[in-house]
């Protein structure tokens, strides 16, 4: 069996989980295996949605003890499920929870782990993963020395493809409590926007923005085209009051949106490493020699303070980002 750890948010299957499930379905078909979706929490309401993405079996560890995320408790539930079902492949989306739980579960299973993969295949019945290393400056093909193989899938890379599965439900035992660590409180940002690592459209600013306050024009463009705002290390380190959670690059977030608009970003190696996985790249920069233009599908040599507001205006006029 191929098992996919899935996450729910407000009773809905999270998109990165749907992507991991779809990839799991593809691998299961390629290797003649069953696909299981695994949920853990106080309520598994909404887990039935996994059947839409090909789950043959939906396993639910539903318990008040799992209401808040706990690294050790979740890793235990997942590892027990892998053992109980004799699964050989465990997948999870490379989300905050997935990246925290999966390596711990892998160690518990004595299994190799490939994180944040962008490609998976079954070769002679064994999982093979392709994953970016050096923040995307290179790609490593990874094979596994262990019988159980664990990988997390990078959000926004694998398409979520609907394919009906039987979706038979089964409940799993949940540990009672007394966990080593547990999440006590979630401090959400006010914006409620998706995280950079999951965003489909990113508008990013660099040193050319000149000041943190000027990021307002990027926010306006992002709002008009349904995107979120990022920044280069130069901008984050400039003391403009930008949080480092906005930083895209090798020492920040590595992103893979459909569209990445780089405004006033020259294209230092460490920035490029974090965003070169974007499907389409637009560069707006005054300097026609800026290295970012070598990567850009579309380049605009010009003053971003003129171009960006024009883009916002034109996007609104065209009704872009309104679905």
């Amino acid at each position, binding site marked *: 069996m191929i098992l996919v750890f899935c996450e729910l948010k407000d009773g809905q299957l999270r998109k990165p989980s749907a992507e991991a499930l779809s990839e799991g379905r593809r691998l299961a078909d390629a290797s003649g295996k069953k696909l299981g979706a695994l949920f853990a929490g106080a309520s598994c309401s909404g887990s039935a949605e996994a059947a839409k993405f090909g789950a043959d079996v939906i396993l639910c560890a539903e318990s008040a003890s799992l209401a808040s995320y706990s*690294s*050790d408790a979740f890793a235990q539930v997942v590892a027990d499920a892998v053992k109980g079902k004799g699964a050989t492949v465990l997948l999870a989306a490379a989300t*905050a929870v997935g*990246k*925290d739980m999966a*390596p*711990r579960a*892998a*160690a518990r299973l004595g299994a*190799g*782990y*490939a*994180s944040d993969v962008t490609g998976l295949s079954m070769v002679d019945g064994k999982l*093979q*993963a392709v994953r*970016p290393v*050096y*923040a995307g*400056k*290179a*790609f*490593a*093909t*990874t*094979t596994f*020395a*262990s019988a159980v193989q664990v990988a997390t899938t990078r959000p926004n890379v694998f398409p979520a493809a609907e394919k009906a599965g039987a979706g038979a439900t089964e409940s799993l035992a949940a540990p009672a409590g007394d*966990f*080593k*660590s547990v*999440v*006590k409180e*979630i*401090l959400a*940002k006010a914006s409620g926007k998706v995280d950079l690592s999951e965003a489909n459209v990113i508008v990013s600013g660099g040193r050319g923005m000149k000041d943190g306050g000027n990021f307002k024009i990027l926010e306006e463009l992002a709002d008009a*085209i349904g995107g979120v705002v990022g920044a280069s290390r130069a901008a984050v380190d400039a003391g403009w009051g930008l949080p480092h*959670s906005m*930083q895209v690059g*090798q*020492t*920040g977030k*590595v992103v893979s949106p459909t*569209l990445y608009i780089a405004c006033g970003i020259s294209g230092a*190696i*460490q920035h490029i*490493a974090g965003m070169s996985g974007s*499907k*389409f790249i637009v560069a707006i920069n005054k300097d026609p020699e800026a290295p970012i*233009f070598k990567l850009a*599908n*579309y380049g*605009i040599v*010009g*003053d971003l303070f*003129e171009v960006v507001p*024009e*883009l916002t*205006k034109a996007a609104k006029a*065209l009704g872009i*980002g309104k679905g």
Partner: protein
Amino acid sequence: MKILVALKQVPDTETKIKVAADGRSLDPADVKWITSPYDEYALEEAIRIKEGKGAEVTAVSVGGDQAKDVLKNALALGADNAVLLKGDGQGDAYAVAQMIAGYAKDKGYDLILCGNKGLGGDNAAMGPMLAELMGLAQANVIVKLELGEGTFKAEREIEGGSEIVEGALPAVITAQKGLNEPRYASLKGIMAAKKKTIEELDAPAATAGAVVSALALPPERPAGRKLEGDAAAQAQALLQALKDEAKVF
């Protein structure tokens, strides 16, 4: 309190990656090696705890002779002891976690700190694996850490915000940018470090989990085009191209 800080030596972020002749590893020629930046936050946090409430800080790294640079730097910054586990520190996170667990067990560390990921390998796996192998609590991608009596409270970065994780010590805590601002080594620290020795041990035995069978550079991106005209014309042309050619919208 006893703190262990695990440090990894990695290629500098400005490194231009070249694949070695074996087709599966990094060509080490012209590579400048540094301490992984996330590990610097971990070390700084350990030193701040030492300065605040008192602690004995041991720095450990897995690698060859070259990795001693990372440990010398840790001593100069304020670590009390440094241990080199001679083995492959660039490989599989599961193997490295076993080596560090093998070294650390029974030594009574109250806190184990490391970066949330090693720059380059980008596995983000060694810390959680170490926590599991040692049966300890974990908190990953931490931007704020408070220690109580046998407990910790940590702020962890998640999608669109952060969350508070509480747990019991001993624990493995992995550091994220924002946890602190690492100091530079002082001349006094550098001189003092010269008098300290790095303990060298053979790395404990470990079994491999994942193996890199090939390393390749990403495919070249197709040549792009520049959009001409004044700002308004460029903006129009871009949106049309994104709509009609790229079909982004």
